[in-house]
């Protein structure tokens, strides 16, 4: 029981066992002592450095820290915490090392925040006139450190957004935006209400959503006058995607296309990898591969063996025998299931190589792999490559969902008499996909970020434009401001997707069933 005197009187320090505190906070283990010492030294060193750089803010932080520590300590000794001091005690000043650590971190954070604020606001110039901007930056610079040239971003805002999209065709972009908004607003209501489950409105909306990619595509690309819809070329003329698409527009196009196109392919790959359909019988595998091996043995190995000088060359010449090994492994591990084998090989090869190799391959190898004379725009090549790449990762995520599903669900679907398509459409996929929403959204986020890689293969998306800005004669060498600007765009985009994924998870009740 606490008496009033012990709270406010001279005997308040009865609660303070200094020896105990010393043991707990300093001498509990030698590791702790060393840690505390290092922490103290680093804090003092950093604080002295900061005192010379930013005197006022450091003093303010120090005073606030000291006052709150004393307040908390006194409250603790008197056992009379207010909510505030209790929070401080549990979250910031729990132990001696935490007291020091809090100060150090507050100083470091202040250093970073003040530094960024100085750069982004105090020393920055917002003038879009390069000459004015240069003069302002020089005038505001502190010992050679210049601020942000936001003028470069403002001046190039249109470039960052759409790059070379013709100004007189802007209405097409607004039309796309309008189309999506008009569809989205009723969808948010209709798809959520049980009343509309079988209504015609829902069916119409679904159809329109399925049509959306095509509408968007034709609005973005336009119509060629010699094509099937040549009559539309008047109002919506053809724009060469390699030239007209750029900036944030291209980033979004690639990301959305890759996400949409990779979904069905990924689904097929996942189902293929897990497929249990009857394989090619063993006799057929061994027979066919054996015959092929025999053919190559006779035509290639025997002449090569005759020519071979070294043992190594002789061994290499025996390569057709490997086909028999392949046949054995194929039967042993895949029971003759070619579909599963092909899906697995595709997934593992794509996942084993970097995206940049796939993108470069699409740029360099597509022309070699297609009939001579076929011309494909780089934009198409890159988009297809991104989708093919994303599909392999998506397949693995979906496979995880399929594996998490109870066997009973499959059996139940069979028992009800559903055919394979309906079994997957109505029973398996809805549950499997719901289980892996977080993983799939994470995959989409990384795909969205990975679109930056197309800047390396020569397409001018957001990052490509940022790099171009620094090459403009007006804004020569201006890099940081555009980079920070597009970092904010990516950050907001990714954070939004992550937020939506969490919402979706909650709505669909992942982990609750």
């Amino acid at each position, binding site marked *: 029981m606490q008496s009033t005197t012990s709270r406010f009187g001279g005997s308040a320090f009865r609660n303070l066992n200094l020896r105990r505190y010393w043991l707990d906070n300093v001498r509990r283990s030698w590791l702790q002592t060393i840690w505390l010492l290092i922490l103290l030294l680093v804090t003092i060193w950093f604080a002295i450095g900061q005192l010379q750089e930013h005197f006022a803010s450091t003093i303010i932080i120090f005073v606030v820290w000291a006052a709150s520590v004393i307040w908390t300590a006194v409250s603790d000794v008197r056992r009379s915490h207010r909510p505030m001091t209790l929070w401080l005690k549990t979250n910031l000043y729990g132990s001696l090392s935490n007291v020091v650590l809090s100060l150090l971190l507050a100083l470091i954070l202040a250093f970073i925040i003040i530094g960024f604020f100085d750069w982004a606001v105090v020393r920055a110039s917002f003038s879009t006139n390069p000459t004015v901007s240069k003069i302002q930056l020089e005038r505001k610079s502190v010992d050679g450190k210049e601020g942000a040239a936001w003028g470069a971003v403002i001046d190039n805002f249109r470039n960052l957004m759409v790059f070379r999209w013709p100004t007189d065709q802007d209405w097409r972009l607004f039309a796309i935006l309008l189309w999506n908004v008009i569809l989205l607003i009723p969808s948010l209501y209709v798809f959520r209400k049980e009343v509309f489950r079988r209504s015609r409105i829902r069916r119409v909306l679904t159809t329109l959503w399925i049509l959306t990619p095509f509408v968007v595509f034709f609005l973005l690309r336009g119509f060629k006058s010699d094509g099937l819809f040549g009559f539309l070329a008047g109002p919506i003329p053809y724009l060469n995607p390699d030239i007209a698409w750029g900036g944030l527009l291209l980033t979004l196009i690639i990301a959305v296309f890759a996400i949409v196109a990779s979904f069905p392919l990924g689904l097929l790959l996942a189902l293929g990898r897990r497929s249990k359909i009857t*394989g090619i019988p063993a006799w057929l595998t061994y027979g066919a591969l054996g015959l092929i091996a025999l053919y190559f043995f006779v035509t290639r190995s025997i002449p090569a063996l005759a020519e071979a000088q070294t043992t190594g060359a002789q061994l290499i010449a025996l390569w057709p025998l490997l086909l028999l090994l392949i046949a054995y492994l194929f039967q042993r591990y895949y029971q003759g299931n070619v579909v599963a084998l*092909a899906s697995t090989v595709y997934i593992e090869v794509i996942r*084993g190589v970097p995206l940049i190799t796939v993108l470069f391959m699409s740029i360099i190898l597509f022309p070699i792999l297609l009939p*001579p004379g076929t011309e494909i725009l780089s934009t198409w090549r890159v988009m297809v490559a991104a989708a093919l790449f994303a599909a392999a990762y998506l397949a693995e995520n979906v496979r995880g969902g399929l594996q998490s599903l109870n066997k009973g669900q499959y059996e139940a679907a069979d028992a009800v008499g559903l055919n394979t398509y309906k079994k997957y459409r109505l029973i398996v996929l809805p549950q499997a996909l719901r289980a892996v929403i977080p993983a799939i959204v994470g995959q989409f986020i990384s795909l969205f*970020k990975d*679109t930056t890689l197309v800047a*390396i293969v020569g397409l001018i998306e957001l990052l490509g434009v*940022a790099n171009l800005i620094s090459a403009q004669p007006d804004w020569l060498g201006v890099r940081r401001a555009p980079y920070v600007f597009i970092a904010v765009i990516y950050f907001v985009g990714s954070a939004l997707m992550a937020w939506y994924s969490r919402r979706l998870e909650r709505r669909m009740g992942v982990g609750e069933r």
Partner: protein
Amino acid sequence: MAESKLTPNPSGGQESVPPWRDIRIIGIFAQIAFVVLVIMGAMWLLGNVTDNLGRLGGFRCPDGTSSFSCGYNFLKVDSQFDISESVIDYDPSDTYGRALLVGLMNTIKVGVLGIIFATILGVLAGIARLSDNWLVSKATGWYIDLMRNTPLLLQLFFIYFGVILLFPPIRDAIQLGDLPVYLSQRGINMPGPVFLPSFATWLAFVVAGIILAFVIWILLGRREERVGKASNRAFWVVFGFFTVSIIGWFVASNSNKLDQSFMIAKSERILAFTDLADNMERRLGAANLNEIDLMVEEGELTSEEVDEAAYTLCVISESASEVNFTAELRRLNIPYTVNRSTRPDQATAKYAAGECEIYVADTVILTGERPLLEDPFAQAIVPTLERPVRISIPEIEGLNFVGGIKISPNFAALLIGLVLFTGAYIAEIVRAGIQSVSKGQSEAARALGLSESQRLRLVVLPQAMRVIIPPLTSQYLNLVKNSSLAIAVGYPDLFAVAFTTLNQSGQAIQVFLMVMAAYLTLSLSISALLNWYNKRIALVER
């Protein structure tokens, strides 16, 4: 069609399934159709490739025929391009094959260093994320969010173009605090170890120390079990290791006395290294070399006089002998100036011309060079003290740094970017792993009276590791694959070198096949290694 009759009827009905609805027959036909489709597709692509390469000249042999293996003959052709940094020796007259090997080594280098540092950063950040200090956990959270929500390529560009290339030129290099670490446009220069020949001796002792540490650990462990009382195992292990290593250090320092030497004119009457100090004291008229600074301050000596008296050394630049000798001179506070040459013969020429009074090098080099001098018998070769490892400190000399480790801006940008990015992902994995261990485990450990470190080491970590390892593996794989972004910051990794090779030789398909095979091999080896480890620590289910 007899086969279909054998099919058990799942519905238990009497009628048998007709063959066109028998799932087994459908399956086999589907498989065969799939194989045929794949083969047809492959043939079509192959036909196109031969059509296209017929014009480009792909797998063409010297004798006019074409074969798969002839496509790789270009690997033996001189590359004719330079690579800015490499682990192994390389110059433009080497072959494409060697250039690709250099690229692979560079990828492995950045991969290994990246994995080590990213793991350290990730573990620290993961623990900090769980810290009971609100500020620490929040700040780490912001770092993780920032890294995970922005593209790696953007981060690399920012670090390379927006930070490192904006550093001042070498003459105004930024010094980190008072440490000998310099940041400049040309990268980072920092102190690094230089290994002398006696390092081998010391290394043997260190290995022996490690073995001894293991033996102590095991023996004390057995004793603990027998006696049933804990002993301070960690202390004895560390003690044993350091004792052996320190003994080894002294043995190595004193065993190779004849390895490092310097050459000086016999007229100087210097017979041992310590005579250098006495001689300098006589030159300066000082009682003690440690007082030189004081004497200069008090005006008894001018700094010009000290510079005049300083020993002039002829050395071969970047040689261990130089670092060893100057370190010893600095220790004894003997003033000196260094005259560097790239090759021994140049140093000898300078020494013969009298540009310096002391020639510092290996004993082998000195004994080889002495007969070339005009009057060999007037020169004395004096052995020098040698330490197994010396720390070389970077110094600005003219427009360049001398000594220490140089890290190129490209490599620095790539490594820092990869470590910061991957570290954020690893932090989340570590956090999830630690959180996956239920609170009851910690409470049980405390109830048993285990110390905090024992609780972490014996109870929490082994359980957390099971959750951590599988996703960690995929992060390591990502790091290695992401290192291919090196091409954006100009670091010559496998992909960058392969791309140059491809552009110069035009052998697109072969180069891509080799690059893909290399990355697949790297990925498979990393995952094999970690899967093996994972299997070792995995829960044994009953």
